């Protein structure tokens, strides 16, 4: 089976710093591929390159068989990429429901509709409410993003991404800052999505990673130093010194 995402020798430098160092990585259809690594390893930087927010210096990104070079973030999203942000990017004055409905709307086509009352449109609010229910936010639908708790914002990020019915989800530390209960909920949610949507999961919470990942790759200084199953990664001496040994987990 051909990979849904194929990262080929991607390089990104910020001045003298090499944030992505000839990184090659793939995600298979339905696979949950976890990307771990210490702070500053370049995990967010590669996600931003996949989205098209940052342009690689060299290398290639192939998504669904199509080279992504030259495509803007919105165009990539319409091709089936979805992401959540490590530092949540929400619209402070809009409610949780607004966010998801807006994502449903964007997924449904263009938004050059100038007259109908969008907030009363069940074609938007219906699917949006269903997603809020699925992510555990149904009771918070009418709350503005600015008033949501940190955990709820993380859940909302996921609900928004799911509204785009992505073929590949890029999750940038969805558990970061969540309490135990919330983390367990998030793990369950992602488990429920496994197999239906391919995922690239960046996460520091090792228990979550080991519970969820089909494959784990370890990023250090922008390079992939190891890739394999949970057992293989745990046994890998390089990983131990470079990452697990640092006590970050």
């Amino acid at each position, binding site marked *: 089976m051909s990979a849904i995402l194929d990262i080929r020798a991607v390089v990104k430098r910020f001045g003298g710093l090499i944030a992505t160092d000839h990184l090659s990585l793939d995600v298979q259809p339905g696979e949950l591929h976890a990307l771990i690594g210490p702070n500053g390893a370049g995990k967010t930087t590669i996600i931003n390159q996949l989205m098209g927010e940052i342009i690689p210096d060299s290398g290639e990104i192939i998504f669904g068989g199509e080279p992504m070079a030259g495509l803007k973030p919105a165009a990539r*999203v319409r091709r089936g990429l979805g992401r959540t942000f490590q530092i949540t990017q929400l619209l402070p*004055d809009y409610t949780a429901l607004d966010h998801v409905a*807006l*994502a449903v709307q964007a*997924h449904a086509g263009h938004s050059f*509709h100038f007259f109908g009352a969008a907030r009363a449109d069940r074609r938007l609010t219906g699917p949006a409410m269903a997603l809020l229910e699925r992510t555990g936010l149904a009771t918070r639908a009418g709350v503005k993003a600015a008033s949501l708790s940190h955990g709820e914002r993380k859940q909302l990020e996921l609900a928004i991404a799911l509204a*785009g019915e992505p073929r590949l989800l890029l999750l940038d530390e969805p558990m970061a800052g969540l309490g135990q209960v919330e983390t367990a909920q998030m793990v369950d949610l992602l488990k429920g999505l496994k197999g239906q949507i391919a995922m690239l999961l960046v996460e520091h919470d090792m228990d979550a990673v080991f519970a969820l990942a089909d494959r784990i790759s370890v990023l250090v200084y922008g390079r992939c130093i190891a890739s394999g199953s949970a057992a293989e990664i745990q046994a890998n001496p390089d990983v131990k010194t470079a990452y697990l040994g640092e006590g970050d987990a």
Partner: protein
Amino acid sequence: MEPGSRSTILAIALALGVLAALPFAAAALGNPAMTTLATRILIYAIAAASLNLVLGYGGLVSFGHAAFFGIGGYTVGILFHHHRFNEALFGLMLGTDQFLITLPAAILVSGLFAAAIGALALRTAGVQFIMITLAFAQMLFFLFVALKRYGGDDGLIIRRRNGLFDLNMRDDTTFYFVTLVFVVLFFALVWRIVNSRFGLVLGGIRQGERRMAAIGVSTYRYKLAAFVISGMGAGLAGALWANYARFVSPDMMHWTKSGELMVMVILGGAGTLLGPLFGSAALILLETVLAAYTERWQVFLGPILIVIILFFRGGLAGLVDLVRKRP
């Protein structure tokens, strides 16, 4: 003040009642100047509401909106000029003094200018966008100063207001009501737009372009569409102004005029439906009252504006909400 909320509906009903009764009150009080003053407020309310669409809802700080106000005015002025002297325009006899032609023409022409300026300016953001919209507006200002054929610096006098059906447009009360009709239609249109799918996208762009891109919205085209609609609205206001004042001049496009429109939006409450109407009324009334007391009224206007803006976050519309929530 959210469009559609109870306080908005109440404020609208109240504003409409006051506005409809105003010329009669003016007549009863023997003060016909009230009607022309109110006409000025209404016309600027349309211009400010147009700017509010991009500035308040879309978060696009256009510092050149007077350009579209001026273009709308000059469209009326130039069409009248050619009509009056029976001169060809673009080789055709296009001159007219008919409201139902000049108004759509003004809206169309200012929309075209907004499309051209917006297409370039919207490639930038932040301070750069402010500066580039200002630069384009000043370019147009100097262009019309140099355009001797249409009066240059001195502007263009429009001897008679445009004709509309059999109405006596010379009569200030009649013209007031004509203006009021356009105000109601325009604010209703803005209300529909900001609550539509397009409006939600526009508000989303103000709050987070990165988020909008991440849900698959190509923001540029929506910003451009909003900018064009906004330019058309300012052009409509300019066309009404040309008829009201029977005069257009490059001053309509001066950067201080753009600044006034911004003050109206912020003073009234950016991103609120009726804010621009409140802002227009407040600014024009303040100017009028202060000018009656002192010649150096501008010295006093600045501090007053700063106090209002600092103390009433959300502008005058926010104040209305505050008062309504109290009891």
